[in-house]
């Protein structure tokens, strides 16, 4: 990808005035979520008489994606949790001007030597570490939930909402996505939305940071069973922390097809770990609301990707695959939460 490498090098030189002979090598597209094009590369430069290099990740907006997201929010979240107990890669540069690489993008550190695939986690050498991975995964989520968004500087970056209105803002948003993107009627999603509006959840006591897509597949893990990096913050927002907990234990992520949430542990254990780490209680009534909401959100995401693919805006096979593979399963998950599956 010589053109992209040249563009990256030119931009990096612009951002590093002290650097000389800046070049990018080994530019390679990788799967890094369906909302942005993700590339890994190695940046080389001379500075102070020394040859330097660093492995980096480029996250570039595509023409269309599963979800329309705010790269500034994602970048801000990475920066906010840097140097905290929540492991994240260092976010370096955020660029909204399309003149450099044709689309807006940001650049961050690559955490190397890890795996992210939700399929790989079920096989050796990772399978023997499931309980440890589960402990770390939901402990880190608890730490995100326990964080003070004001102290992290996120209340000036992420849109504010009152705690009592957090559920409505999220439900309105994802309902609107379904309204705009559905390619066929969605009677189960519509029934779920009506139920959610009739039965609002009790509000959280305060606003929390919500990752927005916290699940197996969006964190890096190593062969020793440690979580090394939390990724894909593109849907980060302020709201109810139960939104993240509910999403993380959604039926759709039971990758092993045996009821273990995230393919790792029991639902009860995941909730218990999160409660211990966050110091919060997962009120069953509220969690039930957010679990059903998770399936509405999931349906919205899958059909949105399907529309992009059908319209030709983005022909990445992952969009067609996710939409076909998961929309019906997500509807079944909604039915299960509503107690309609026997």
């Amino acid at each position, binding site marked *: 990808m010589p053109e992209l490498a040249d563009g990256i090098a030119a931009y990096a030189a612009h951002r590093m005035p002290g650097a000389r002979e800046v070049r990018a090598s080994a530019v390679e597209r990788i799967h890094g979520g369906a909302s942005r094009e993700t590339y890994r590369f190695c940046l080389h430069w001379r500075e102070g008489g020394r040859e330097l290099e660093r492995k980096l990740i480029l996250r570039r907006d595509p023409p269309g994606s599963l979800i329309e997201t705010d790269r500034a929010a994602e970048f801000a979240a990475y920066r906010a949790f840097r140097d905290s107990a929540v492991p994240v890669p260092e976010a370096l540069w955020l660029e909204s001007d399309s003149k450099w690489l044709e689309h807006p993008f940001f650049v961050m550190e690559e955490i190397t030597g890890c795996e992210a695939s939700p399929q790989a986690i079920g096989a050796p050498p990772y399978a023997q570490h499931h309980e440890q991975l589960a402990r770390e995964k939901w402990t880190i989520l608890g730490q995100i939930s326990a964080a003070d968004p004001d102290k992290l500087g996120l209340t000036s970056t992420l849109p504010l909402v009152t705690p009592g209105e957090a559920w409505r803002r999220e439900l309105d948003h994802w309902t609107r996505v379904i309204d705009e993107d559905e390619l066929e009627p969605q009677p189960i999603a519509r029934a779920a939305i009506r139920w959610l509006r009739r039965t609002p959840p009790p509000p959280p006591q305060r606003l929390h940071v919500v990752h927005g897509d916290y699940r197996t597949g969006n964190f890096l893990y190593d062969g020793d069973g440690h979580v090394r990096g939390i990724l894909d913050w593109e849907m980060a927002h302020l709201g109810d922390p139960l939104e993240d907990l509910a999403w993380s234990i959604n039926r759709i992520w039971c990758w092993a097809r045996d009821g273990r949430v995230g393919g790792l542990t029991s639902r009860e254990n995941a909730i218990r770990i999160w409660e211990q780490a966050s110091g919060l209680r997962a009120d069953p009534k509220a969690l039930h609301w957010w679990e059903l909401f998770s399936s509405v959100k999931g349906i919205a995401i899958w059909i949105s990707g399907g529309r992009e693919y059908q319209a030709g805006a983005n022909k990445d*096979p992952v969009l067609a695959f996710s939409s076909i593979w998961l929309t019906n399963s997500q509807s079944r998950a909604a039915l299960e939460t509503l107690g309609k599956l026997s």
Partner: protein
Amino acid sequence: MKPDVGTVLDVVAGKLLVEIAPAVEAGYKRNSVALTGLLLGMVREEWERGAARRVEENAALRALFGRAARVVTDSGLRARLESAAATREQSYLISELEKGNQVLRALLIELHAHVESLATPQARALEDEIWRELVTSTERRRFALAPF
């Protein structure tokens, strides 16, 4: 068409997954080839059942609408339910069956919302019937590869 569509899709999907994907450089391109193979596997499954599941579902929805027309209190909705219940397939092309299915499923949403607002025992029984149809609708669309 011979070889059968299903056979061709099976073979192509298998070649993509077993022969071609491993020969492509690791990373995005290999994943895309493998995903395309898995996608073709689902396309094969849907190709086989596509007409049958729509014919079955459209008939089930028309029958449900016929019964629902006796329960609803909104006269305009009742007229649309009776009209939809009386329709028949004009063509067995999947695209035509799909058009009819979308019209019927949109009406099902309207019916479901209306029935939820009624307090009669007949309405609760109809609501139960709608939920059973929705559960069945997901079984008709389920893929062998589906996570749930």
